[in-house]
């Protein structure tokens, strides 16, 4: 399952994830900017008085209010864009954060001596190479453990013969156990 085909598929999935996330991010930002523009438009599109003096005073007075109008529109943009982007991060990055969280929990269990089950990510989760590598590591450990135990069991079976043969076989098995474990450094 680790051939070049699966690598291409993984790359396509990652690209697809990026594009979908970026398109939603663009929608959030555009919505925020649209709200900002709408507030500015509504504030500035009020009709000027017909008479000259009224229009003059309205135009002269407007820069005094412009700061609060712009501040309101920018605050609305920041609030809307930040809230929707935070929600996007929680929902979409869960596909990355979830697997990391699960792997951390498995590692906690491993350190505390609990039986370690193979890790499988859910459909749609990112970085499928993580559980593969973790399961391969645990698999290799268990393989070595089984080899050691099998060699020791085999030596015990020979204990049905005389004591000297039993002891010699056991010492030979122990030497092989030490040899199997010697690769760990």
């Amino acid at each position, binding site marked *: 399952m680790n051939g070049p085909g699966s690598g291409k598929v993984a790359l396509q999935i990652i690209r697809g994830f990026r594009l979908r996330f970026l398109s939603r991010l663009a929608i959030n930002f555009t919505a925020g900017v649209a709200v900002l523009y709408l507030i500015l438009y509504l504030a500035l599109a009020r009709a000027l008085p017909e008479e000259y003096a009224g229009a003059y005073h309205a135009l002269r007075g407007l*820069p005094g209010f412009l700061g609060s109008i712009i501040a309101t529109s920018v605050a609305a943009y920041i609030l809307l864009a930040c809230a929707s982007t935070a929600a996007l991060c929680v929902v979409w990055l869960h596909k990355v954060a979830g697997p990391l969280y699960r792997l951390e929990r498995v590692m906690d269990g491993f350190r505390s001596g609990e039986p370690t089950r193979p890790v499988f990510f859910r459909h749609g989760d990112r970085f499928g190479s993580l559980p593969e590598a973790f399961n391969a590591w645990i698999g290799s450990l268990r393989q070595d453990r089984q080899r050691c135990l099998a060699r020791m069991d085999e030596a015990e079976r020979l204990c049905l013969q005389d004591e000297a043969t039993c002891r010699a076989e056991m010492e030979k098995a122990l030497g092989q156990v030490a040899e199997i474990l010697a690769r760990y450094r």
Partner: protein
Amino acid sequence: MKARPHPYRRNIRYVNPRYQGGAALMFAAVIVATGTAFGRMVYLELGERLRTFALRGHYPVKTPYEVVREPLAWHIAGLLAGVLLLGTAAFLLFMWATRRGVRHVVETLRRSAEGDLSTPTGSPGLKEFVRLGKEFDGARADLLEELREVRSEAASLASGGIPPDEFHARWDGLKQRIRGIAP
């Protein structure tokens, strides 16, 4: 007929404040920075334009919006382009850092499968991967210590010269310890 919920439905939760919250903060910084820059530039330019226009004797417009429409449109376009570009750059940087962190952890796991339990993970970048790397390194260090002790005990027993009773007791103890590896 009422549809039953799917038993394996994804349960979306805020599981990782450092990761999900960190990304949200990064985008918030982009949004606040672009909004602040926009506000400052628009305030200066539109204010000046309105003041200059008010000093004219003739007002061929019905609303103040018509006075500032063109520069406002340019600033809005600039804000949108800026926030999209910076947001995209921030996201790509974040994903690159994530992939880099995952690659380091995967390489560590592959090395571990080949027997290397001592080389540190050394995950760079995002704190989440630094933490995960330390978690792995701790587990690998514990395991290596256990394997060394088992190996040393096996070598000690294999060297001979141990009375039979003690030998069998230690043999059973060793088997029990080996059973405890990756249970």
